[in-house]
């Protein structure tokens, strides 16, 4: 049978949705779950072969594409644009364009913020609070680029503004690095996987962490003391996309999967499974109330306006960030 090899995040391709797709189209879906870096590195290792559809974040497409040419331009005529929230589609197209060719369309979006055990750490309101000596050994964040961006904003810098100037960006990152290095003694570990963090929070090993909104809401469902909080300096907004690898062998199936997934009723189900929001136009009306409530609690009006969306990362900046992160991990 025809086959679609999908490289995606865990939770983005629930078994029932895959089954429904196979039933409708006769195409089987082989799902590999991964994260941004691994998606890119896998495609880089294969020069864009091995998968028919990938789902990197929108800010991580243009850079790697310029560097390694691992994606194909999308044929927008095969995508039903009206299924997307217009503004989000446009923004994504803009961010993922290289040489005026579009490489990505939006799928799921969400935010980075703070997961807090409000009983144990009631005072946490911004990223800098993770460095509060009172919480020594009980906080965590990911040693990945969102932490750099987040702490930059929390300390009054604007990293996105410095994107164009590598030198300035490096200087800024050095400052952030220093700040994080200071904060490091407070951190129990740098978390890697979502479940790892959630388990640590549940067991009480961690009381506050920088994390994805969905994780916070999952915890909240079990224990109302655990909350997802949009930090004062602003939550970070991310959008995961659909992009077609350069040597994908089944583009038709890929487009079919995209269009299928953006159908409101499907998108709503996927969003519910992932615990995030979808770029599908009209799906929000179909979504369950719970998530909406949690969203409303975490994001008052001001917080929504304060969400900072990642712009596309120019090639080369990740080098700078990488070194800062390595230093952070290696230093003591």
């Amino acid at each position, binding site marked *: 049978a025809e086959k679609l090899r999908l490289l995606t995040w865990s939770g983005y391709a629930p078994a029932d949705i895959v089954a429904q797709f196979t039933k409708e189209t006769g195409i089987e879906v082989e799902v590999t779950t991964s994260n941004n870096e691994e998606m890119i590195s896998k495609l880089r290792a294969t020069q864009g072969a091995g998968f028919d559809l990938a789902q990197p974040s929108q800010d991580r497409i243009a850079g790697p594409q310029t560097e390694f040419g691992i994606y194909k331009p999308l044929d927008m005529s095969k995508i039903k644009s009206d299924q997307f929230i217009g503004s989000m589609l446009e923004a994504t197209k803009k961010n993922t364009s290289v040489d005026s060719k579009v490489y990505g369309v939006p799928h799921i979006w969400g935010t980075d913020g703070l997961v807090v055990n409000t009983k144990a750490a009631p005072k946490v309101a911004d990223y800098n609070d993770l460095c509060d000596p009172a919480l020594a050994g009980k906080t965590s964040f990911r040693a990945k680029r969102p932490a750099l961006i987040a702490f930059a904003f929390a300390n009054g810098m604007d990293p996105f503004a410095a994107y164009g100037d590598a030198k300035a960006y490096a200087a800024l990152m050095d400052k952030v690095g220093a700040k994080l290095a200071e904060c490091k003694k407070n951190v129990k570990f740098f978390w890697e996987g979502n*479940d790892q963090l959630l388990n640590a929070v549940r067991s009480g090993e961690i009381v506050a962490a920088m994390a994805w909104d969905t994780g916070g809401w999952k915890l909240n469902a079990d224990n109302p003391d655990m909350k997802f909080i949009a930090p004062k300096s602003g939550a970070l907004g991310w959008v995961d996309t659909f992009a077609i690898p350069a040597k994908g062998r089944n583009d038709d199936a890929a487009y079919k999967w995209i269009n299928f997934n953006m159908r409101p009723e499907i998108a709503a189900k996927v969003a519910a499974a992932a615990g995030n929001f979808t770029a599908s136009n009209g799906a929000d009306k179909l979504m369950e109330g719970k998530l909406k409530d949690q969203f409303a609690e975490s994001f008052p009006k001001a917080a929504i306006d304060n969400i900072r969306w990642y712009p596309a990362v120019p090639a080369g900046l990740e080098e700078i960030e990488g070194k800062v992160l390595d230093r952070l991990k290696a230093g003591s």
Partner: protein
Amino acid sequence: MNRPSITWKLYIAAFYLFLFAPLLVVAIFAFNASPFPSPPWRGFTLEWFTGSGAVFGKPGVLVDPIWLESIGNSFKVAIPVALLAVLLGTVNAWVLERAEFRGKTFVAMMMLWPLVIPGVVLGISILAFFSRVTNGLEDWLQTDLDFLRPGLPLVVLGQLSFILTIATLIIAARLRKFDRALEEAAFDLGASRARVLRTVTLPFLSPALIGAGLVALLMSFENFNTTLMLVGSEAPLPIAMYGQMREGASPAINAVSLLLMLGVGGIASVFALTSKAER
């Protein structure tokens, strides 16, 4: 004079306790009815083996496709690796022990070399080299050569690169013990070369062939470093375990580990039995 002192004996006992403590806790907590593999003991359950996922949100390993597939992938790698290692290892052992040619010491040293290359380096070098080769071939032939891209076939090659050394050493060691007079005697009694090989040499080597095969199987199953760099979309067991462990410990991993221990224990006892038969 060699009578061991009591401190020494206590040390030995403590050592074996130390050796098995981690395995024991892994095995025990596979049966703990708790979402985390940690104390306190919350009662005995088989949920992590056969559960449907209703209780802890994750299905037991015997019904979870993630684990089943990764075990399957491990076999898809280990069996070809073992077969190739035995086959090529025998030929190599022959070259080491029997052939005479210039540069033999050099070849012998080269065969040992993979043992002193860190697994990660072996992995990246093979990844980089095959990436270049495949790109070159694709430009030239205008076809996809996916099997040389990261994925199980490449993992097989990567593991073979050092497991072959070990298989070669095992078989060569046995071949070295072989009294060539046995072959000459058979030949002298009128056997053809093929018959000598079949009736004398191979029967003599067979314990080493089985041993090398089992060792190769085990090493392939447990290899992590090299595999990590070469794996594609299909993850063998250690890679899947690593992925899950980064996601946070769950008794499902304990359950898989216990199965692995049982399998290894089984293979190891077969190995022990064959090597005893050898004596």
